[in-house]
């Protein structure tokens, strides 16, 4: 079985995030790190590999991003991936969610994975949807917010938390599964693994190498344009009650709540 894990490099949570006024896009300079949710995906892949229920031939980390994204791949490899693939191309800059998912799907197609794992969301785009886009292009079943995976021959039994409680869903492989952070506690890489990461094979691919139609990616290929970044409306200053007569205070609180249909 071959598992591909989609990983993404995102600005570190500590970096103050802002929009770059000159490009109108998220300012991605500054510290970057492997998207924390993706570490859960890598851990899930490793647990399947080490679990023994199925034979996993290799775990491949795949990312789409600028040159610096190799760091995310090194991290993924230090956590156990056997090799990595880096899709990078000027033409991809400014891709929206749908375009990004398409580009990743094309890259994955070349790998013919049995299972694609990814973190359910990324710290920067704050989207929860790449998995669904990738799955549609790959023509595979997909689930997101999965917090438990049991693998047996050719299929998965997944648990995920949906609107009405926990759903248990059986999924036939090949499939695309987005995992939530509750699924596992990611391991720490050993020093040896960190030092060995750079030696593991890393392939770099451009759009032409994986048959990406340039008209479907990049800023021009994206069907949604984001702009007009502005501050949210100022919140009205709150009201303060000094409690002197508690019965009266409580009355005021109840009236306030009632006004807002909170009771």
């Amino acid at each position, binding site marked *: 079985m071959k598992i591909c894990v989609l990983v993404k490099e995102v600005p570190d949570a500590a970096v103050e995030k802002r929009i770059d006024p000159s490009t109108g896009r998220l300012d991605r300079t500054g510290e970057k790190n492997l998207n924390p949710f993706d570490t859960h995906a890598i851990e899930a892949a490793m647990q399947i590999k080490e679990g023994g229920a199925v034979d996993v031939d290799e775990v491949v980390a795949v990312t789409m991003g600028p040159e610096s994204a190799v760091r995310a791949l090194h991290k993924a490899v230090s956590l156990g991936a056997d090799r990595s693939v880096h899709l990078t191309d000027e033409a991809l800059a400014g891709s929206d969610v749908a375009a990004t998912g398409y580009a990743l799907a094309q890259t994955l197609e070349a790998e013919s994975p049995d299972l694609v794992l990814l973190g359910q969301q990324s710290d920067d785009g704050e989207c929860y949807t790449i998995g669904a886009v990738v799955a549609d292009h790959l023509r595979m079943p997909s689930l997101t917010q999965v917090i438990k995976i049991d693998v047996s021959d050719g299929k998965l039994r997944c648990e995920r938390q949906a609107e009405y409680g926990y759903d*248990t869903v059986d999924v036939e492989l090949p499939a695309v599964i987005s995992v939530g952070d509750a699924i596992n506690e990611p391991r720490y890489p050993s020093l040896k693994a960190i030092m060995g990461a750079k030696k593991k094979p890393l392939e770099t691919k451009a759009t032409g190498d994986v048959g990406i139609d340039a008209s479907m990616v990049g800023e021009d290929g994206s069907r949604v344009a984001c702009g007009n970044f502005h501050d949210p409306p100022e919140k009205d200053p709150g009201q303060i009650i000094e409690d002197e007569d508690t019965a009266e205070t409580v009355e005021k609180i109840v009236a306030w709540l009632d006004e807002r249909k909170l009771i």
Partner: protein
Amino acid sequence: MSNILVYVLHYEGEFNKNSLGAVSEAAKLASELAGEAHAIVVGEGSDVTDDFLAGLGKYGATKVYRAKGPDGLAQPVIDAMAKVIDSDGHKYALFGGGLLGFEIGAGLAARKRAGVTMEVTEVKVDNGELVAARPILQDSKISESRYKGDLGVIIGRLNAFEASERDGGGATVEDVEFELSPWSTKATMVQRGEQRGADVNIEDAEVLIAGGRGLGKPEGFEQLEELASAFGGAVAATRAVVDAGWFPYAGQIGQTGKTVAPKLYLAAGISGAIQHKVGMQSSENIVAINKDSNAPIFEFSDLGVVGDLNKIVPKLTEAVKAKKGG
């Protein structure tokens, strides 16, 4: 004139609140676009009767498409919606907050090569087109999306769209014939909607009563449990009291805990340091009770009460019970 197709989730004979909100929102927008709001419901149980579906007319849908397919899974819905949009040319697809909205909306955008925006908090009409606004960068900025092409997909944030009923007739119901893609048959629901544990998941609760060091002792949480019970909500805690062992980590809100955005967040004995604030600042209504008038929480609460929580909370619980019961 543009029509909007709204996905409506249902379960055990009831429509999902967020879906109803989306229908109401779509109806409002459609009228500005000189178009109509149509709903689509996918299911195979006996609950998707004509009467049941026609009831969506109360929320502004003029037509409801009924598609036969497994409940609770996203990909069959993508197939159904794609078919409807292909034949009837809806310009926008709208989803209320919730898991399936993300899965279906994103998959639909992939299928139809359309633009998609998620976590949308507001939609407006500009020049005959819809513009979707969403918060970004941890709610510090708003970004607006405009769509190119034949279809725009809008996925709302949880609780962003308010359901509103109106007078008027029921919606017409139309059955949709469509084919399931081969991969849409590869996922099978084994068990749906299993409730686990007696505790309400704090991330889903509409009302959260949170306690901090100001409670003074672990027993202080007992009065908060009572208040939460009166509201039908859940109890949460700050890092400091979780550290001290007064409350389990599962209820911790803040930078290193959970992020929540309930309708009502009542903070008792919480100072409001930023490490806590970032976990609850998007709550719709914030009420704070603290005996220290200088506590930072009063700078961002909607209603601040300076006083002794041990006196106020029990009385408030009684009053809430009375109001609800009476």
